[in-house]
């Protein structure tokens, strides 16, 4: 058990005498009832089997932050990092600020934020590996880095930037509520360390001594309906009507008098000038996602065209399946798909833990996507292999693979859309994600299939068929973009900031994308109406493919690079993405103490994988598999 000093100061002890029954979201504060199996078990902290005697052990706890008092001294962050032995680039708690007013009527509002141990932990739901657990003890949401495979999806879904993806270790870690201290009646380290008397902690909804309110709203804090966070605020000192951020995020917060709260608004920090920023656009951490999503959508699209070629109007495609181009085309598609999956897997922090991606089928759209795409990949592999043979039995199996592959592939793409439509990323949380992915399925699928067949065939039917399919795909995507842009520029959320960055920092690339898409659309119309022949057709199709591909790459890269999460405001250096990027670009980050880490290479550790296989008893494997399917 954690050591309590004989002279431990009073302020370090928890203070809750009574608590309410329900929290403001209508959930029970007492998380389990007497006799529940989740009670009276040890937390096994570092294999200590003791059970804490905290009288409120089974009640939801939460941080309390008095924004009027925070002086931004970093003591909470330091105490946290000292206790958890975190290097400079990782921080479970961070202090940022917003500011308002005009000298000398100036106000800085510091905000210290860690994990809010939410009622509805989207991290837990989103994590494909089930590295997260919400404990009945204190309602703490804890994450186990030993399970995590470093995909970082939890960092996408969390609206508060609580989970920290370590670019060096390739794993996530986060605030553990100092449950070891709670077990012995002490407040978390950060709270005990606070020098402004701003941070407090206790059973949720309890208002600390000398404090008057417990609200769930403060300028810069995302809406609570995403996760029902367990944090309460006091902020009684009048704020200015407009509070700005010092970090690079083009956002400010404007007081909505009617709603009585602050809403995010665009802050055009970098003017309206448009830039290219090719390097930033095309070589981000998310490039692996660009390659994966595009290759999967292209191959699945082409595959689906084969599978559905029995339908009227697709006779020309059906003809391919029985022709000599079929096997080479499938083989190339297989290589492409394999490459996409390989890139995705290798971008994980721990690529050798890939098999854990299925662990959370019950809740995680990412898990489902991984399962869907993996099943599609397996079926497609079978389909490709069987296509080398012409025996009726192999044909039958090929058909089974085709049907299963089509179903799993479509499910995979469905969840691919779902996994990006998350509230913490308003730019993605729009139906355009579906039109983009669906559109690419058709446009890239059609264009790819055409590239593999058109130059080598004399079929006159094929060209207009594929051109039409590509055209439909492009049209769907364009419609999505038009509405997305229209909606984002008006939105009162981080979405408008994404729109701003897309049209300024990447403005020229964005315009290029729009021109390429329009050109591709026109060309596909021309091809489908004009029905060019032979050589001309081949050249035109290659041109169309390149247009579609370039548009898709830029488009998808923009999708990933311009998204802005609903995170808390940062400071001028710390937790300022723009400064981190600057430090990486200029080489300042080479100095470890700058607190910005380069992404390390994360190798596929065969030995670790083999070791896991060797040391995991069969019964455990069976249980784990069962848990995946019958998730309770």
């Amino acid at each position, binding site marked *: 058990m954690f050591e309590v000093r004989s002279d431990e100061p009073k302020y370090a002890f928890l203070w809750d005498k009574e608590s309410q029954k329900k929290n403001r979201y209508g959930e029970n504060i007492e998380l389990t009832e007497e006799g529940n199996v989740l009670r009276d078990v040890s937390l096994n902290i570092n294999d200590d089997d003791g059970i804490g005697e905290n009288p409120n052990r089974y009640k939801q706890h939460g941080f309390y932050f008095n924004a009027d008092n925070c002086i931004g001294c970093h003591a909470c962050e330091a105490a946290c990092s000292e206790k958890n032995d975190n290097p400079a680039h990782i921080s479970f708690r961070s202090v940022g600020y917003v500011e308002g007013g005009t000298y000398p009527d100036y106000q800085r509002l510091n905000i210290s934020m860690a994990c809010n141990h939410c009622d509805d932990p989207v991290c837990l739901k989103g994590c494909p590996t089930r590295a997260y657990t919400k404990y009945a003890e204190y309602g703490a949401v804890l994450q186990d880095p030993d399970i995590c495979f470093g995909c970082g999806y939890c960092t996408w879904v969390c609206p508060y930037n609580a989970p920290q993806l370590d670019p060096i270790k390739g794993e996530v870690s986060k605030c*553990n509520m100092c449950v*070891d201290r709670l077990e012995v009646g002490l407040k978390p380290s950060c709270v005990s*360390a606070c020098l*402004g008397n701003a941070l407090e902690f206790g059973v949720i909804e309890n208002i600390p001594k000398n404090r008057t309110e417990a609200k769930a709203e403060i300028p810069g804090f995302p809406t609570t309906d995403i996760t029902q966070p367990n944090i309460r605020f006091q902020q009684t000192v009048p704020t200015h009507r407009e509070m700005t951020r010092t970090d690079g995020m083009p956002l400010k917060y404007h007081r909505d008098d009617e709603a009585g709260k602050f809403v995010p608004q665009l802050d055009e920090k970098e003017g309206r000038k448009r830039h290219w920023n090719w390097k930033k656009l095309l070589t981000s951490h998310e490039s692996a996602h660009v390659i994966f999503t595009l290759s999967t959508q292209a191959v699945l699209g082409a595959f689906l065209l084969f599978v559905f070629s029995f339908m009227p109007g697709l006779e020309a495609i059906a003809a391919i399946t029985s022709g000599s181009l079929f096997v080479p085309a499938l083989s190339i598609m297989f290589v492409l798909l394999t490459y996409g999956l390989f890139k995705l897997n290798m971008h994980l922090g721990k690529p050798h833990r890939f098999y854990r991606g299925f662990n959370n089928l019950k809740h995680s759209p990412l898990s489902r996507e991984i399962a869907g795409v993996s099943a599609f990949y397996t079926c497609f592999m079978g389909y490709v292999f069987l296509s080398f043979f012409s025996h009726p039995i192999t044909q039958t199996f090929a058909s089974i693979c085709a049907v299963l592959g089509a179903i799993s592939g479509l499910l995979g793409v469905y969840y691919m859309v779902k996994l990006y439509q998350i509230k913490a990323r308003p730019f993605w949380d729009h139906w355009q994600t579906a039109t983009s992915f669906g559109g690419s399925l058709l446009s890239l699928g059609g264009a790819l299939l055409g590239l593999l067949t058109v130059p080598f065939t004399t079929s006159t039917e094929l060209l207009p068929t594929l051109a039409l399919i590509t055209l439909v795909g492009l049209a769907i995507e364009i419609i999505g973009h038009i509405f997305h842009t229209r909606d984002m520029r008006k939105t009162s959320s981080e979405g408008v900031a994404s729109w701003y960055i897309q049209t300024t920092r990447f403005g020229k690339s964005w315009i290029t994308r729009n021109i390429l898409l329009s050109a591709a659309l026109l060309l596909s119309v021309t091809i489908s109406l004009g029905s060019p022949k032979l050589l001309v057709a081949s050249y035109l199709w290659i041109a169309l493919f390149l247009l579609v591909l370039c548009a898709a790459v830029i488009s998808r890269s923009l999708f990933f690079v311009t998204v802005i999460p609903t995170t808390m405001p940062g400071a001028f*250096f*710390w937790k300022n993405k723009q400064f981190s990027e*600057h*430090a990486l670009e200029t080489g300042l980050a080479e100095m470890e*103490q700058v607190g910005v880490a380069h992404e390390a290479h994360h190798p596929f550790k065969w030995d670790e994988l083999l070791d896991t296989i060797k040391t995991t008893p069969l019964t455990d494997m069976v249980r784990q598999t069962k848990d995946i399917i019958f998730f*309770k």
Partner: protein
Amino acid sequence: MLFGRKQKNPIKIADKKVDSWTYATCGYCSTGCAIEVGKNEQGEVVGTRGVAGADVNRGKLCVKGIFEHELFKSAGRGNTPLLRASTTEEFQETTWDKAIDHTAAEIKRIQAAYGRDAFAVVSTGQIFTEEFYTLGKVVRGLIGTNNYDGNTTLCMASAVSGYKRSFGSDGPPGCYDDFEHTDCLMAWGSNLPEQHPIIYWRLKEAKEKRNFPLIVIDPRVTMLAQLADIHLPVNPGTDVVLQNALLHVIFAEGLEDEAFIEANTNGIEALKEEVAKYDPTTAYKICGIDEDTIRNVARLYAKAGAAMNIWTMGINQSTHGSDGVVGLNNLSLVTGNIGKPGGTSLSITGQCNAMGTREWSSCSGLPGYRYLENDNDRQEMADFWGIEESFLPKKRGLPQTDIFPAIGTGQIKGLWLVATNPMTSMPNTPRIRKILDKLEFLVVQDAYVDMECTEYAHAFLPAAVWAEKEGVMTNTERRVNMIRQVTEPHGQSKSDFDIFKEIGKRFNSDNKMTFADTVSDTFDEMRELSKGRLVDISGMSHELIEKSRGIQWPYTQDQADKGETPPPGGKRLYTEPGTFSHADGKATLIPLPFIDNNERPDAAFPFWLNSGRLVEHWHTRTRTGKIGNNNKYSPIPFMEINPDAARELGIEHQSYVRCVSRRGDAVVMAMHTQRVAKDAVFIPFHFFDCVNRLTLGLLDPHSRQPAYKQGAIRIEKIKDQQAAAQMSKEMRTY
């Protein structure tokens, strides 16, 4: 409720497996927080925690203290002594004996050739009191140069000078417990949340228990200014005018404490006559605070049951620094607010042991607040040390800020720097560069070999840092506190105590002076010397200090003999009437005419330049610049500039800009914020080749402290941002 996993792995939480905790006092600022440093079974230093039962910090630590244990392993430490004949050569590693022999020989050579005072010593506020005392013995008693001072001239000289002028002696009369009793607190140029966060916490705790008005005087909207009940955004360098105006109102409205003035002070008539000239209407035009506010604040302050003034560098680092301190003392004395709970005039000191150097280092005088100018004091010390009285000078020599110019003009040829980094900390560093280059011999004694002055050094002596050694320090509220040795000195480095003694030996061939073997015995020597002085520590011992978590002086042998346990806090000076340190027991009220000699913004240099500290950094960053969890909050220098001014200059937020003054230029990253006035900027002072390339540092006539906080610059937009980024990066080797 969704809980997730049923099969749970054990929870892993970092466990540093601390096996033993060692008591120490924080080596950063002057707050004097008690720290315990944790070691694991292997003896590795792994953690820090605030000492729960210590009255100063009550278990709390700030961002620097929390990571202070990482100091021992930080980069850039000196491993071995280094020597070179000329600064154009590479350093060669050498033995301690050779390094010390050479250093002593060079000192002797210079003194023989150019006179005793041609070798100067500039020390610090960073090392332990016993070390200061030992250094004083070596320098005053053996080497015998009168050009010996501490870098405390850069931070606390004005407070020292002001206290001496008003009360007859240095020594802050108040304590942190005063927050618990005050009815009105005025903070002058002091930003506690950033500079002294633990003292701020003590203030906050007091204010939450019993609210009282907090008035902050600062041209910048600091965190404390923002939290104040009344913020007076005074024009830079005009505090004295504001003080005079407040006194004007107090006298005009009869709010003074006549009985106290009568019993305790001299000079009331002259003061009244002077402040009569500063009616609020006139004062407003100079200090920028409107007349209603001046009257309001004067009444609030004077009518409070107990009222206190605290201040830091905003007052001290000014051409009116000493006057500003006297002005605050005037306010306190006139309203009877000295020596009573909650009524005081408390300088919030800078360095961890600035007080120790003031009390015991013999820098500006002799140990225990004795004066070179006083015949008895000289005789007493000469007898105690076993030297000739005539060996001691009859007048204080050059303060630090005059030592450097004297090197420039050739009077001084050799310099010994102890734990101080003038290449970053002195004003007008372009001039310091030229000056250091002129030295025939520079010996740098420091924990860090990458400290910028080593560029001009001929000898480098690697020193142990903080709790690699043992000793005491005195904090802002006169609390003597203990640092126990946590770990062995890094590499071959030695404690400053040992280094001083080794050098002393080279000048003590006839053994006329004796040095105690241990630090603890040295403390006993100081104890003897303190008997009957204001700074009486004769009741203390290392053991009792640690046990009491620090003891405020005075604590006398007599009290100890009587079995009086030292109080946990709340000890004040001048609590009895007529006990001030001037000969007649009275304090002096001193009239303060205002002369505006600041470098003011003009058409060519239109911005006020202000500089100051950041919570995450310590002084010249030799320590915090290497600790990621400190440094990351400001890894490169920045400049707060008003967005309205920036817009006119076309300067973007987070872009690099060039600042130019009449001394030099600096590249910083611009931060738009309304925290500063449209005609003012703020740049932190921690960074090498940065703000002090710009500062003028006009000297205060009394304290010789530089006016870092008032100067004029212009700001230029930089077109080639990439080149600027590279330039900025090159200047940050840590």
